[in-house]
């Protein structure tokens, strides 16, 4: 019994195991996987990242005129880095940073807004295809 009391007394003066979290920052190891970042200038719009993404967090919107539009949902992303490995120009067009996303609040529309956008992307692809088909047939008839 004296032994256990002695141990308890020693333990009183031991340093604490836990991290004083909100006051002190947690030190993350180097190379911690974070958000996927994108550079429009170097992108060649091959859509490879969109195809390999397991949760479908990268989408391209296809307007009728001009370049495709990149859209990324940081709350859906699982940070696996598969898109970066699929990218033909990694570290230039698409790379994985160490920054982390803040938690989503309602205004971010992490779910609802994204569902709408998913639909819009799908629709835009179909519209683009239809417009292309239409212009093709028009060209043919002109000839």
């Amino acid at each position: 019994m004296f032994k256990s009391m002695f141990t308890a007394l020693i333990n009183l003066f031991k340093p604490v195991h836990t991290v004083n979290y909100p006051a002190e920052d947690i030190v993350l190891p180097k190379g911690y996987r974070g958000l996927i970042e994108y550079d429009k200038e170097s992108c060649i719009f091959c859509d490879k990242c969109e195809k390999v993404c397991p949760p479908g967090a990268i989408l391209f919107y296809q307007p009728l005129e001009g370049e495709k539009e990149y859209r990324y949902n940081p709350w859906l992303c699982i940070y696996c880095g598969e898109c970066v490995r699929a990218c033909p120009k990694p570290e230039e067009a698409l790379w994985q940073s160490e920054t982390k996303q803040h938690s989503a609040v309602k205004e971010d529309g992490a779910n609802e807004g994204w569902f709408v956008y998913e639909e819009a992307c799908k629709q835009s692809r179909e519209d683009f295809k239809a417009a292309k088909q239409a212009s093709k047939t028009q060209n043919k008839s002109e000839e």
Partner: protein
Amino acid sequence: MKKTIQIPLGSQHISLLEPIRFKFECENEKIIGVDADVGFVHRGVELACTRSFEFKQVGYVVARVCGLCAITHSLSYTLAAEKLLGYEANDRIKYLRMLMVELDRIHSHMLCLAHTAENAGFEALFMQIMADRELVMDLQEAISGNRVQFDFIAIGGVNRDLTPELTALIHKNLTLLSEKIDALIGLFNNNWSLSLKYKGVGVLRLEDAYTYNALGPLARAAGLATDVRVETSDFPYEDIGYTMILESTGDIHARNFVRLREIVNSIAMCRNIADNLPAGEILEKTKGKPKGEAVVRVEAPRGELFYLVRGNGGNMLERVRIKTPTFSGIPAMMEVFKSSEYADAPAILASFDPCMSCTAK
């Protein structure tokens, strides 16, 4: 008049981490009949793997079956897919995969030990083991870049390499950990009040282990010499110093000791891997589409994990069958409960290390 009473344990109970319901048929304090309901967290992963995801993405889907054995699930699927693609990984990839699996085993076993201690009424020991477990979690975090969902294994290799700093960190943390494990072994062996709760409680006899096809630490504690690590040739476990741990009594104490000694063995294996890592590429390109049928068995921390994958040469798979360790362990578990006391049930249950999200997938 009815002589027995029914006492349920679960689906929400203070000793459970995940929902499972046992209906115990009790005669006074003694349990004489058990009924188990395991399907509370069914999510339809098998269906999702064949309908919604392409075969290259499935590895990331099955990793979400269970948080604790994320690495073994993605590893088993990847091995099966690689067999279908006719690809064999080089030695460096194999060693890196083994390293992560063994680290996973260490922290999973420590979680189970902590939980067994907590359910037997030793709250402080729970805190202590969980604090020591952080050493391994930190290692996995540093190697894979994430804390729980590692996403470390991809078809054709692994996603990240081991740097010299990481090797140093592995040695540093494992040295610290092995001291703590030695202290724990002494504690579990010699502490009198722990022995009251563990020795001779929840016994699985060897004949029952054979009859009910027990597996993993549960079987090895009963003296059944089965370990998928020696029954498959996917990984060179003999080269890195694997030894099979066997106990004979089959009670909670024996199960704890199988786990503790396996941790010691795994620490030694991890050190060997970190020292003797062969050279080579870490990610190789694979070609083709999966066609045919492949079965893969991998020793997860809780026992044997089995994957059957069938592809038809397309992007989508035809069937992914996941058989998790707890799923086949449940018949043996139900047998152990019979003829033990109701008051011991939480501690016995924790000593099985049940993983319900694996079981119901």
